[in-house]
């Protein structure tokens, strides 16, 4: 007994060090393995959210030109879609407010108040939360394309898992051939690229092709831009391609975002449970 006490006394620093490391690792892996870690301390907290939003309100002035450019480009795109649609609609007898049609997706504008892109586990913070109707598992898109999925919600802030995070996985499709794949962020990707797996090797994927969302998870509508193909490789011994894409959204300068609410997601979840 005395020997044990003496052992502990002589190695107390080492034991404390090991104890602290075990605590750190437990916290870290608990944090990593539960994607929906909103119950822990995080930037979705009131205090840290406030500090980050003060910082964002100061720095946003420096980027006004860039933001304006992005917004006006998006407006241009939307205008072209809107006016083209009018010509089409007027030739057929389709009523826009017919009760047969239902608005499936709602959009909510929000500012990106904190963005990371240098780490392996990057998280974005937006300034909309529970009080604005944001819930877990909602999709987030930017001016150009897909940003990520909401994984944590506070009262006034929410945290978003972007494509550039080890944990990110989403069903996407190749626009030309409509073949499904899964987008992941592997260890050899940097903050501008990502990898699409599971596209069969008989599909003709060429450089510059568009990868878009498939709508299979019920988080995003179909056809939102994710990125363009920059490299295609066949994996030896398998029937699948390894496609590298350039992410269309630039995480180093990201200020505007839209949170997407799928109004029929409840039904979707019920069906998924029945599987």
């Amino acid at each position, binding site marked *: 007994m005395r020997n044990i006490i003496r052992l502990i006394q002589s190695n*107390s*620093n080492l034991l*404390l*060090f090991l104890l*602290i*490391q075990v*605590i*750190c*690792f*437990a*916290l*870290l*892996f608990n*944090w990593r393995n539960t994607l929906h870690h909103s119950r*822990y*301390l*995080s*930037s979705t*907290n009131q205090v*840290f959210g406030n*500090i*980050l939003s003060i*910082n964002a309100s100061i*720095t946003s002035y420096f980027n006004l030109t860039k933001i304006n450019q992005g917004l006006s480009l998006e407006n241009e795109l939307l205008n072209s879609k809107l006016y083209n649609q009018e010509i089409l609609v007027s030739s057929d007898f389709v009523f826009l407010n017919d009760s047969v049609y239902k608005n499936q997706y709602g959009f909510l504008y929000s500012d990106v108040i904190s963005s*990371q*892109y*240098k*780490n*392996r*586990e990057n*998280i974005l*913070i937006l300034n909309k939360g529970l009080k604005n109707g944001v819930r877990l598992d909602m999709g987030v898109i930017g001016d150009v394309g897909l940003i990520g999925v909401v994984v944590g919600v506070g009262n006034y802030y929410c*945290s978003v898992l972007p494509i550039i995070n080890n944990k990110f996985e989403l069903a996407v499709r190749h626009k030309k051939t409509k073949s499904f794949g899964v987008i992941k962020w592997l*260890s*050899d990707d*940097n*903050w501008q690229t990502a990898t699409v797996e599971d596209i069969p090797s008989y599909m003709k994927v060429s450089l510059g092709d568009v990868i878009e969302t498939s709508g299979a998870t019920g988080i995003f509508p179909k056809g939102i831009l994710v990125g363009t193909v920059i490299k295609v490789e066949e994996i030896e011994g398998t029937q699948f391609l390894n496609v590298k894409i350039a992410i269309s959204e630039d995480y*180093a*300068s990201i200020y505007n975002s839209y949170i997407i609410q799928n109004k029929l997601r409840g039904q979707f979840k019920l069906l998924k449970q029945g599987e």
Partner: protein
Amino acid sequence: MIGFLQKGLLFFVLLVVQVFFIDQLDIGQANFFIAPLIYGLVIISLPPSLEIWLLMVLALIMGLSIDLFRNTIGLNMSSLVMVAFLKNPLLNTIFSKDGYDPLKELNFTTIGWSNFLFFSLVMLFIHHFWFYIIEDFHFNRLHVLLLKALINALISVGFFILVHLITIKRK
């Protein structure tokens, strides 16, 4: 007591610089490779006479406060505690017993420029390497991580020199 308050203030300034300046810095293609961690300066420069357990607890608190901003609970904590634990043993192996004054804090003037440069480079290399290993958590890119740790340690040492030149007392 005043020394500790000064260190606390220095840590606060370093935290602000780390979270709101260095993490947001946009340097084009090199963005992914260059991400220095500078807040280790406080732990490295505290006097060696301080008990290791106290140093580790301080490192734990500092790491936690960085982690809260960066949304990675445990990552910065673990790497900073590693630095605190290895500081005194490394100091004793690199320098002889009378090579430094244990009551004075460690910086460029108390133990000499070349000595502190070397010591802080070793400490920062350990800090960065441990950080990147836990962050990636697999070992097939070990050479990249080593190179990344070395480059970022060099950048951080440059930052230490800058801090020293700013805070130095002019006679």
